[in-house]
């Protein structure tokens, strides 16, 4: 980059500063100064088991949701990518449609489906499979189902775009070299698509950490996530404590993703490693 061109990045840099760096700095100030420097908010968080249990629950929910999305989304993306090219746009469109609906709308839809008088219970009762309505709404299961449904399109798209980068000629090469379809997939396609799949997992994991509408509407009392705690504290104008929780969450996310990246770089082939 020539010295003259350097100036052209300034607007973007300024935007990033105002939109991202400043808010994060403000959160840090809120958490650490009240008005003098203090660690009381963090002491309160780490001193009370209830907060830590919510925190652990949040990490667990995010892990399970991301993993479930991976297990469902990867085969879906594989299905789409192996269809004839003229079908793919339609299939992708079908996957994307739910993404254009608000999370709130989709969560209410799940309440309609899972409620005591809901569609699912009604169907099961009519079919005679159950005699009394099942308690599905306000359970952890409802939280998982709704979150997976909401986040799944993102996983499918991430996996799909990684898969379209793979040269299918490599799979054919593996076949002619003696690998059956399953082994060609396992030795060639899977390793080459795994990085995209893990990226999808990380994206879903991060997005899950911030969920609060879904657990609030379809979850039970014990299904609160850290997002719900932060919302509560903000509602009570405990800005400092809310900020402290946000920082703990941010720190935990960064550490986990750094670990994931380290593992991936050790064991995975990255298409970006090549310079050809």
């Amino acid at each position: 980059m020539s010295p003259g061109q350097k100036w052209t990045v300034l607007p973007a840099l300024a935007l990033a500063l105002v939109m991202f760096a400043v808010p994060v700095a403000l959160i840090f100030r809120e958490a650490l100064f009240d008005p003098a420097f203090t660690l009381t908010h963090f002491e309160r968080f780490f001193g009370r088991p209830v907060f830590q249990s919510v925190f652990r629950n949040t990490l667990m929910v995010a892990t399970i949701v991301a993993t479930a999305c991976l297990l469902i989304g990867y085969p879906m993306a594989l299905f789409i990518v192996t269809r004839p090219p003229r079908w793919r746009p339609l299939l992708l469109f079908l996957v994307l449609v739910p993404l254009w609906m608000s999370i709130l709308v989709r969560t209410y839809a799940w309440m309609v489906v899972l409620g005591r008088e809901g569609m699912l219970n009604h169907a099961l009762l009519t079919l005679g499979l159950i005699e009394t309505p099942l308690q599905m709404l306000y359970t952890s299961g409802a939280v998982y189902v709704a979150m997976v449904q909401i986040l799944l399109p993102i996983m499918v798209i991430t996996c799909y775009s990684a898969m379209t980068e793979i040269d299918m000629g490599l799979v054919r090469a593996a076949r002619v070299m003696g690998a059956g379809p399953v082994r060609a997939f396992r030795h060639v396609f899977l390793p080459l698509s795994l990085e995209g799949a893990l990226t999808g997992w990380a994206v879903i994991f991060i997005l899950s950490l911030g969920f609060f509408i879904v657990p609030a509407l379809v979850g039970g009392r014990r299904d609160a996530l850290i997002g719900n705690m932060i919302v509560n504290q903000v509602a009570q104008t405990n800005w400092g404590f809310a900020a402290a929780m946000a920082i703990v969450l941010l720190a935990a996310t960064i550490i986990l993703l750094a670990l994931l990246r380290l593992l991936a770089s050790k064991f995975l082939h990255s298409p970006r490693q090549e310079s050809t």
Partner: protein
Amino acid sequence: MPTHNAPLSFQAVTKRYGSTSALESFSLDVAAGEFVTLLGPSGSGKTTALNILAGFTEASEGEVYIGGRPVGALPPERRNVGMVFQNFALFPHMSVFDNVAFPLRMRKVPRREIGAKVGKALETVHLTGLTDRKPGALSGGQRQRVALARAIVASPPVLLMDECLSALDLKLREELRDEIRRIHATLGTTVVFVTHDQSEALSMSDRVAVLNEGRLCQVDRPDSIYDRPASRFVADFIGRTNILPAKAVTDSAKEAWASIRPERLRPEPGPDDIHFEGVVEERAFLGATIEGRLRLGGGQSLRFALPRSASVPCPEVGQTAVLGCPPGDIVMLDE
């Protein structure tokens, strides 16, 4: 690696896509150990024929035999062929060693034999010491050698090569051409080589099969194809030639064509030669030869490539000249 090869055969193989046929009633027998090139322009069906042989594409009609066995119903992994691809198709996530070892592992070769076999294959293609590299860290020529080693490592009786030199620059291409010839001579494998490059086809093959628009035009030894093309298309596609109406060289009244290679024409023709008189239209000095065009009385133009000779001066542009060749050097073509 011991000599290990098998004959193969296409019998009336047709491949249709909707109403168009990519390959039409294609029959070809390749002897064990033979090096046969499928040569044709893009869309001629040569790659379709290779894909049917490898098992990537299913023939609409007809059957393919490898070693006397029909293989049409077998998936690629059970046909026991080696293949080199146009873009090499090396596995980017595997080292050179793992790439070359892949066919052995898929064939469940015992682990202790794999190291030796991979080493031997890499030695055969003159590539050693790079076994831990990933393909991304290799040059084009090195990748091609890895692809070759991977294709021959499991000693398949049949080796398929799909335009495998066209991604390389000219110098490497010529080097690897010799290398492939040498490997073929060493291993004795049956080779089916697909290319659109006629000089590759002529220089490497025992026999050349020329395809056009899904049909086999001619199959013969390279020199026979060059000297005795069977059709206008083959005469034109292989080397350079002059196609004239037959009337220009004989008294024949029927609709036919005559093919005359530029280098067969010579100045100061003898009394038994066919003579062509015309005005030199252009002329270029190329070192060993002088090439140019003669505008004939009938309006056709005739390319010539004359050996440079001190005793016979070449006519200048604008001058009238008489060139000729023995009648036997002119090939009459019906189509």
